[in-house]
């Protein structure tokens, strides 16, 4: 333990603690910009400088460790002068179109400038005028707003181990860019969007489909069908001012109808469908000696990552399309048939916590209905903005159900939205498929929670089924390297690209707070507990779709509409 003095208050902390964290224990938040909990400190911004007695200069408190007897001042005139001037310098360089900026409500630079009392920008001069990087179908980068804090670089490199962005050039030409400035769309970007969450300003955002969706809703010729991802019910409310974790499934359906969507369904329906197909595939692989471990395929960020970095594992990956794409294919076949609507008139929209979904819909193989299966993807943030734009008082909306045909869902589907959920849902059904009996202990606790890698063993009729769950691509790598080395003990692995799973998806309310992602997950587990059906195979609408249309899991129609293939992609 180390004892030091911060602003005259004595504090004792563990050796190795940063001054910034030590200060929290005496209730002092040292202003900062490039530091973010969950990422290694990189001291780019210099905002968090503090005065240490006996040292000639200020020290960056995010990285400087405490030492015995240290005397720290976090709020001296000298510290305040430095902080203000640094923020002033950043603003002098910043492209300040704040009223129209994506991050107007969540900009950390704006907040910092206000809190530090920066009232004037005394430096006049050139502002940057870089071209936007619009090469990606999912994410837009605006280097003009970048404050070069390096958080996106760190999350991409350290957490996701994808490393498609980095600093290039030097001096005033320094910028964050991709390999050879090729653009995000032309490198190994998985479109996970974690960079959006860590960006303190509006330099990275999703490619919006709001205007396209408004146009479709206004077009009387079009019949607009909407699906909402499992986690939406736990995070949309938050983006609309309700407490984190408020369950808003019913209000969400109501809001979508008021926005003008013609038919409101649920991705949860196709999540149940995914389980039917994927659990059947697993049972088949186990029984017939197929390639194991089987790895989930719901997450498009993970799929792109795999195609770039682990293409040798393609045979391990489930051929099931993601729930979004299963829904898309059925919306223009099964639903069109049932409702008697020309599929050419159907516009299929999905509401996703995800930026990679925007990429997924545009994959050429995602057109098995004869049309692009899903036309537009809106993130949590985009839908919330549409609701605000339409003036809908979300909090006071009544609860409405989705339409039954493709809107009824089980608790197994709902928990898809948090890491471990797909695994738990699949095991509930796989157990039934193998044993003919229902799994008694339906809550599979070992695969829940926010540990980066979780494992469990489940006895299925004498066979010890070994499973693993990884979320965040850095964690995925550890599990995949075992598979690659032929040393993986698992039968089934769930991988989600984003830390926390969909709860932490790139399209969610801005923030990199793991605890908050966990709260969204708890909401899903709570809904699971209270739903009449908790197993995908119990969902009446799922039984119906097989009876009326698909016939059987892994059958010919399923194969055509619900399964896909993967492509090896280059690493430059």
């Amino acid at each position: 333990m180390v004892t030091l003095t911060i602003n005259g208050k004595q504090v004792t902390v563990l050796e190795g603690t940063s001054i910034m964290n030590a200060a929290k224990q005496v209730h002092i938040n040292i202003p900062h910009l490039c530091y973010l909990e969950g990422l290694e400190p990189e001291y780019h911004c210099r905002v968090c400088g503090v005065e240490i007695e006996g040292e000639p200069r200020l020290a960056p408190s995010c990285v400087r460790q405490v030492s015995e007897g240290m005397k720290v001042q976090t709020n001296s005139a000298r510290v305040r002068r430095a902080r203000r001037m640094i923020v002033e310098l950043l603003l002098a360089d910043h492209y300040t179109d704040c009223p129209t900026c994506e991050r107007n409500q969540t900009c950390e630079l704006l907040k910092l400038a206000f809190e530090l009392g920066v009232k004037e920008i005394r430096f006049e001069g050139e502002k940057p005028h870089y071209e936007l990087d619009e090469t990606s179908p999912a994410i837009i980068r605006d280097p003009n707003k970048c404050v070069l804090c390096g958080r996106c670089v760190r999350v991409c490199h350290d957490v996701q181990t994808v490393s498609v962005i980095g600093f290039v050039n030097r001096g005033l030409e320094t910028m964050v860019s991709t390999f050879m400035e090729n653009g995000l769309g032309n490198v190994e970007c998985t479109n996970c969007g974690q960079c959006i969450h860590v960006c303190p300003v509006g330099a990275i955002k999703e490619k919006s489909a709001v205007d396209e969706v408004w146009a479709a809703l206004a077009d009387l010729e079009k019949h607009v069908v909407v699906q909402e991802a499992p986690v939406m019910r736990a995070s949309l409310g938050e983006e609309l001012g309700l407490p984190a974790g408020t369950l808003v499934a019913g209000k969400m359906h109501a809001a979508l109808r008021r926005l003008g969507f013609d038919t409101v369904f649920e991705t949860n329906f196709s999540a149940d469908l995914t389980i039917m197909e994927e659990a059947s595939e697993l049972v088949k692989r186990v029984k017939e000696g197929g390639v194991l471990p089987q790895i989930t395929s719901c997450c498009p960020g993970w799929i792109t990552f795999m195609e770039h970095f682990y293409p040798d594992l393609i045979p391990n990956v489930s051929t099931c399309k993601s729930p979004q794409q299963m829904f898309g294919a059925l919306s223009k076949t099964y639903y069109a048939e049932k409702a008697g609507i020309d599929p050419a008139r159907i516009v299929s929209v999905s509401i996703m916590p995800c930026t990679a979904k925007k990429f997924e819909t545009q994959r050429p193989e995602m057109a098995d209905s004869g049309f692009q299966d899903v036309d537009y993807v809106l993130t949590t943030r985009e839908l919330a903005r549409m609701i605000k734009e339409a003036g809908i008082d979300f909090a006071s909306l009544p609860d409405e159900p989705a339409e039954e045909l493709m809107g009824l869902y089980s608790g197994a589907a709902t928990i898809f939205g948090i890491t471990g959920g797909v695994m738990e849902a699949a095991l509930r059904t796989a157990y039934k498929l193998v044993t003919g009996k229902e799994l008694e202990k339906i809550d599979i606790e070992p695969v829940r929670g926010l540990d980066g890698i979780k494992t469990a063993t489940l006895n299925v009729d004498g066979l010890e089924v070994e499973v693993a769950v990884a979320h965040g691509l850095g964690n995925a790598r550890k599990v995949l390297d075992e598979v690659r080395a032929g040393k993986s003990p698992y039968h089934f692995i769930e991988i989600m690209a984003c830390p926390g799973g969909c709860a932490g998806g790139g399209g969610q309310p801005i923030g990199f707070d793991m605890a908050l992602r966990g709260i969204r997950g708890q909401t899903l587990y709570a809904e699971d507990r209270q739903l009449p059906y908790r197993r995908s195979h119990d969902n009446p609408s799922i039984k119906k779709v097989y009876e009326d249309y698909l016939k059987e899991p892994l059958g010919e129609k399923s194969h055509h509409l619900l399964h896909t293939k993967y492509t090896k992609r280059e690493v430059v």
Partner: protein
Amino acid sequence: MEKILTKNVGKPNSQDIEVYLGGGGYKALEKALGMKPKDVIAEVKKSKLVGRGGAAFPTGLKWEFTRRESAEPKFIACNADEGEPGTFKDRVILLNDPHLLLEALIIGGYAIGASKGFIYIRGEYYREIETVEKAVEQARTKGYLGDNILGSGFSFDVQLYKGAGAYVCGEETALLESMEGNRGCPDCRPPFPAESGFLGKPTAVNNVETLCNIPAIMINGGEWYSRIGSPDSPGPKLYCLSGHVNKPGVYELPMGITLRELIENHGEGVKGEFKAALPGGVSSCLLANLDVKLDYKSVARAGSMLGSGAVIVINEDTSIIDVAKNTMEFFARESCGKCSVCREGTRRAREILTRFANGGGKAKELDLMLELGEVMYDTACCGLGQAAMNTTASAIRLFREEFEQKVRK
């Protein structure tokens, strides 16, 4: 004064190992290998030698810090990324006496317990790189590098790294990053390289000129060395004299001669009337007083820093605003771009100075630049940012009227 650092410069084929051996070369290594490493360090401490790269840190102490770390392996890296504008002293040694450097580096490696040494040479120094490469080969052939050097049981080898043109890589932590194949950006200290340097291992980083004092210290003793030049910071110094002088060049002189002596006795006087001088390159503050002694402490007392000893003389016909603007163009380009305060600060200062140079300055921007200089000193991560405003701030303090004449009316 007898030459120590440049004693071989001017000899025919001075870069050749035979010539070097003929002048008593590698005798210091032989002697050092017969001593205990801690005694080698004690001798260097006794000499009071301090780093010549600019920071003037005691060399013996740096070696002791590196030696006492428990982590293995340890490394010694020679900083030959000479890039400070007005500095051209290390290249004289690299080109003319590479074995002096190698001998010193091997002694350093022995002293700190390193089996591997590096020389990081400025990428533009093509001939110097070639010369040092040849010298390394010769030293290997003669058994001064490699396994069991001179039967001592000590093994040591040297690897060269070429810079890629970034000035900031002369900063030791950026240099180490560059050697590791990373972007050349300085790291926060602590930890210092002596504790966690190349690949996270204890690393002593020494400038070329610093190291080249070592053989003479080994032969003649630290006591002898400490009596040369200024008692505060003893030894010979390579002064790089440039700017408005009649005879610019590299001069090896005892530490502590005055600016006047350097300019008048060696540089053959100022071209025109003396206005000011930068004693330590563009990172230092302007001096208008010719009687300042050019040793680390005296220059610091006069409000500047000796740095690498790049003395740039400026005559009365020169606009001090142009001088400041020139330095700021350099720093705005060479800032690594990592610290916001340095990247944005140098850029804004450059713009302000450009406006002043064109007669479009604003009076309040003079104090703004002084404040910026203080904030950059306080908050920038490395010496580049901390010192980037020195020339400008001192120009404003010494020649404020000159700036005021350029304020837009």
